[in-house]
């Protein structure tokens, strides 16, 4: 896909690409354009219930932003969100990739079973999936605690969320559990795309399995990994429902992530302007940290024309 590329380049003035992206652009701009614009203006306003009712917002410039940057809680939450995101992304990609590679070398019945399990996990409505986990780790009805106790340990009844480390581990478990099916299935689909001829050719050339992986499989998988990692970062940074539901719809402040923090300001305290500012700072900080990565992705996207 590199040497032949040049054959295909169309003159830049061509309208054909624009026609191709027009429908997508129209829908995205139509549905998301105004809300995003409004979100930005909102972040420069004081906008609470009174303003909602009167319909007249108060412009306050950068006050929301300044207040946030001065608030130590904001920085704590930001840091926590990054650590959590990093851990989630690493765990879900490693586990997802490991399973996908295993799947390729599994007995076909087991492969079918695992595949079906993954699809079932995926098929469970998110809220229900989280509720099941919540229940599995609840204080009174926990199958996990009772199984541990049955194995001879004495955990009595246990609130797994009193300790934030075990709490975040469980939240992470739910996130990873929900993310793995998609990652595994995508990587496995990519693995099946590796042309047999290439593998055979490499084998005939006497390459060992590590070499084959490096020179044949990896180049095909790399773009998939890039996509999956970037999406995982984006998704895990926004994790909301898992925390919200597992902590009884009222997470204590030591469980705040950026998404929860923005939500609490907006809907809990009706400070929609502040909520918007947090949401935008969230995007900006995410962009800041992943800047090189995103530049790289844009380059990748741009290069294979």
């Amino acid at each position, binding site marked *: 896909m590199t040497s*032949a590329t040049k054959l295909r380049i169309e003159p830049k003035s061509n309208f054909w690409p624009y026609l191709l992206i027009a429908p997508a652009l129209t829908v*995205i701009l139509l549905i998301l354009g105004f809300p995003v614009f409004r979100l930005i203006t909102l972040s420069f306003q004081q906008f609470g219930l009174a303003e909602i009712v009167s319909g007249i917002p108060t412009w306050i410039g950068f006050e929301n932003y300044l207040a946030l940057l001065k608030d130590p809680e904001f920085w704590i939450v930001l840091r926590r969100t990054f650590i959590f995101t990093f851990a989630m992304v690493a765990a879900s990609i490693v586990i997802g990739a490991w399973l996908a590679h295993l799947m390729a070398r599994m007995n076909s019945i087991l492969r079918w079973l695992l595949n079906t399990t993954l699809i079932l996990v995926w098929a469970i409505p998110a809220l229900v999936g989280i509720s099941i986990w919540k229940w599995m780790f609840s204080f009174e009805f926990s199958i996990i605690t009772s199984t541990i106790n049955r194995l001879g340990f004495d955990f009595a009844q246990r609130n797994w969320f009193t300790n934030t480390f075990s709490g975040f581990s469980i939240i992470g478990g739910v996130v990873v559990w929900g993310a793995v099916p998609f990652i595994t299935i995508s990587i496995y689909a990519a693995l099946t795309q590796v042309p047999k001829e290439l593998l055979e050719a490499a084998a005939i050339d006497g390459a060992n399995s590590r070499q084959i992986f490096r020179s044949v499989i990896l180049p095909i998988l790399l773009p998939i990994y890039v996509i999956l990692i970037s999406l995982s970062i984006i998704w895990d940074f926004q994790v909301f429902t898992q925390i919200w539901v597992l902590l009884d719809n009222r997470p204590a402040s030591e469980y705040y992530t950026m998404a929860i923090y923005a939500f609490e300001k907006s809907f809990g305290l009706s400070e929609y302007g502040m909520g918007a500012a947090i949401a935008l700072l969230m995007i900006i900080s995410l962009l800041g940290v992943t800047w090189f990565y995103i530049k790289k992705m844009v380059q990748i996207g741009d290069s294979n024309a």
Partner: protein
Amino acid sequence: MHKKSSIYANISGVFAIVFMGFPVYWMVTTSFKNRQDVLSTEPTILPRSFTIENYQNAFSREGFYASLRNSLIVVLITVAISLFIATFASVAIARTKFTGKRSFISSLLIVQMLPLSALIIPLFLLLTRLQLTNTIGGLALTYVAFILPFTIWTLRGFLANIPIDIEEAALVDGCTRVQAYRHVLLPLMAPGLVATAIFAFIQAWNEFLLAYIIMQSQENLTLPVWLAGFTTRTGTDWGPLMAASTVTAIPVVIFFSLIQKRIATGVTAGAVKG
């Protein structure tokens, strides 16, 4: 690329199935337990009772069939339109060059970083102005907008993987560009289309917040909103909720098994025709 199965892979597979599958198992078995067993403070892994009461309870609740129908319609429209539109856009990104391409790609990435809850109020305002609230079309269109960036980006990845030589060869063989796309590119894109279709399906199938805010009449609810109705001030009806969730998961599994066969045939058909 299926090699012989290895013992290590098989054993790990069994573990993975157990760990990933346990919550699923717990949902399904709970849906067949009686109330007392569901609420036991000494739960056991093997169920101690069997009843189909929970299913009877779930099915007899108002709105099940209507919400099932609505969900199916919304999801099918969403999947069809988003795949259709995304295929064009991904071809543009993967196969052509144009001014503004970088900005287009960046905006696709940035749009996905927006937290949904921050957008709800302006979005509802917009949909009200467009008179699209409480309509299946409005909900589906919103889903399409949220799903498109991902779909385009993923399809682009799959397209980028397909050596351009194959199309070249087809063109040399005397195919028109459209024929080259349809008979060569599309079949090769099949796995990508399937992956994105499933993704779009599941996203739209499970989405709660937008559906709750946008849809209003009782006859327009989707399944996740209907499921939320199992929780009231007086708590959650676990047994019936698990039964209803099990039923809700079935269409996804059916959709997936139908479409997964397609991948295999799609790929081989593409190879033969190419």
